[in-house]
């Protein structure tokens, strides 16, 4: 497969995952703001911006509506949902011969939806409905892709993009929530505390899944265990890392070159970090540093993958 095509598929997928994550975080944050007891709007907004990776220009201005509107619609701001959808579509347009027509149509529809006057009106009447329909559009795209696209190398680049983006986002989110998660053992549990923790789970669509595993008994160490170490839940770090590993292995298998040891070692290390540890060990050590390492490893894998499959130097390729 052409490197440019792999690159476009990878970024198409990352941008959509990013749009979905932003939509979900905004939705949860706005709904938490309805219960002002725990923290004020400003604190919540700041926390959300931090968990989105602190994009510039999204600082709290005191005017929730206009800032939220910017986060949803600002074409020119790389953190906005519209920007991510535009970028995903532009990437898809350049590889139309690689994705299925059904996929293209779904993505195109989502793109036109974001640019329609209807979306603006919906923002004013019910932002939650708007965000839900954005997330629906992205889920539809993924579902249609799973059932119509050829599951060859291109498909694995799509999966790689999605799970790298997701692993990075979940790790960032957990880092931002560390005061709630890692330092609350002595504090008494209030209703507001409960709402905050449920909010965190909902940021990862994890509340119902959590309840299935642990019942509705929400405690911070269980949340840490669930979002980091669960092997079956699609937003948990361990699950994401497993998927990244499988995607990279499949990409290697479909080519004829051996992947560089660095890449194999990097993904192996990440896998071992999450697969061979317990929540007790993480919490008794330095959980923030642990999360930080995971994020760095994700960046490293992205870099290596790029250096090896997309932007390799001609000299290195000719030497083989």
């Amino acid at each position, binding site marked *: *497969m*052409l*490197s*440019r095509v*792999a690159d476009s598929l990878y970024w198409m997928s990352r941008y959509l995952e990013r749009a979905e994550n932003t939509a979900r975080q905004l939705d949860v944050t706005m709904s938490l703001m309805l219960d002002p007891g725990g923290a004020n709007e400003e604190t919540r907004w700041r926390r959300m911006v931090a968990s989105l990776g602190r994009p510039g220009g999204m600082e709290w201005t005191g005017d929730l509506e206009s800032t939220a509107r910017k986060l949803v619609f600002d074409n020119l701001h790389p953190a906005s949902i519209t920007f991510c959808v535009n970028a995903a*579509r*532009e990437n898809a*347009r*350049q590889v*139309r*011969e690689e994705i299925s*027509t059904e996929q*293209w*149509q779904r993505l195109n529809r989502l*793109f036109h939806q974001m640019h329609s006057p209807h979306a603006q009106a919906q923002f004013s009447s019910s932002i939650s409905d708007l965000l839900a329909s954005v997330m629906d559009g992205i889920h539809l795209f993924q579902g249609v892709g799973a059932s119509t696209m050829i599951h060859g*190398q291109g498909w694995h*680049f799509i999966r790689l993009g999605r799970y790298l983006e997701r692993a990075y986002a979940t790790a960032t989110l957990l880092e931002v929530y560390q005061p709630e998660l890692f330092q609350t053992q002595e504090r008494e549990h209030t209703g507001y505390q409960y709402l905050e923790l449920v909010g965190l789970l909902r940021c990862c669509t994890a509340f119902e899944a959590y309840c299935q595993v642990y019942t509705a008994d929400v405690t911070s160490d269980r949340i840490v265990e669930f979002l980091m170490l669960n092997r079956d839940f699609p937003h948990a770090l361990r699950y994401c890392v497993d998927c990244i590993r499988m995607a990279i292995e499949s*990409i290697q298998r479909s*080519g*004829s*070159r051996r992947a560089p040891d660095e890449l194999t070692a990097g993904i192996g290390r990440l896998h071992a970090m999450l697969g061979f540890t317990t929540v007790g060990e993480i919490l008794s050590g330095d959980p923030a540093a642990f999360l930080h390492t995971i994020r760095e490893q994700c960046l490293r894998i992205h870099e290596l993958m790029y250096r090896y*499959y*997309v932007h*390799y130097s*001609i000299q290195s*390729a*000719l030497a*083989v």
Partner: protein
Amino acid sequence: MSAGPPLELETLFGDYPLDHAFDEMREGNGNLRAHYRALAEMLASLPADELQRRKQSADLAFLTQGITFTVYGRDEGTERIFPYDLLPRLVTATEWDRIERGLTQRITALNLFLRDVYSDGKILNDRVVPSELVYSCKHYRRQMRGLQVPRNVYIAVVGTDLLRLRSGEFVVLEDNLRVPSGVSYMLTNRRVMKRTFPLLFQSYGVKPIEHYPQLLLSTLRSLAPEGRPEPNIVLLTPGVFNSAYFEHTYLARQMGIDLVEGRDLVTHDNIVYMRTTDGLKRVDVIYRRVDDDFSDPLIFRPDSALGCAGLFNAYRAGNVTVSNAFGTGLADDKAVYAYVPRMIRYYLGEDPILPNVETFLLSEEKARQHVLANLDKLVVKAVGESGGYGMLIGPQSTARQREEFARQIEANPRNYIAQPTLDFSRAPCLIGDRLEPRHVDLRPYILFGDKVNIVPGGLTRVALERGSLVVNSSQGGGSKDTWVLE
């Protein structure tokens, strides 16, 4: 479903005008031409709104198959379907036979001309074609001098525009020897028409065209460099912003080859590679949809990022085939065009089967005076332009436009030619709920590898505006399916 009474032919035709121009469907006295009778009877037998219903279902088919082009500007990313007409244009077997023989003859001669001009220049030494005409052509590429191209094929993919005159005779309006486009519309029109009028299609016995992508692929394969039995063939596109991008993705998909952009290619030691996730992969044949100027910044325009640096040297070394060859625009220059009948006689010793349109070269003093005095009756064209740009249609022009052209002609006579305003043929189109005649041309697609191959048919382009003579899709033209009958 519809319940209206069947349309009478009279109602369908309404006040369908007939005049001196050739009508594809009706004779001068209003009678239907024999091969159009079945089509007309079918139309007349349909319930009143059935035709509209089929039109809508065909529209939908175009839209859902993604046969659209992107309109940029006001509303970024708006996609429209390529305008088309629902009624097929019919060509009889006898007519087609003549077209096919004529085009084969013409393309063979043009290819010999290119080979000659870029090697010995015999035709120039014999003063059959003036050498200043060749050397002053902006598409002449001196880099091609003395270069051996694979199998001596310069023009592997050609789209020649034909018109039908008052007499019913087909003539050649121009040869497109650089990067002719539109073939994807020919193929998709056919697919939609088969769904829209299945019974009619069956009863007519139409020659198939669906194997074009396969023919194109085998043409390209036959031009691969020596010693590359399993050549890697790619289609080089300028990218997503090109108006023909749909066609590029379509052809690449239909042929099962990679669609590459200039930035996917690198050259090393005069070998072209593409960057894949599996390392560099050697490229053997490039079906090029990028103009000469943009193909290699080292040789042609240095500011172009669409091509691949070093491509030309790899080509010169014979390590990669590029089709069409560079410099083929020389032979579709509108002034060189005037000499094609002479080339046919010179190289093949035959009379041209398909004639040219009468053409005045404005670099000739006498012709220029005649043209300047009759600007309001003639069509003036810039020689290196295409797509209907740089054109003055005398009878439809204003005095100011004519003055402007006169000034430009005086300043650079070599850059212009003039032709009489042609009454080219019209075919019935579905306009609203009745038939009206519109001007049409015909662009058959010719492939030249081991031998000349022409799929029977081509793209019939329609000037959809009443009275308009411009069929180019960039200027309000549409298309129709073309049925060549058994």
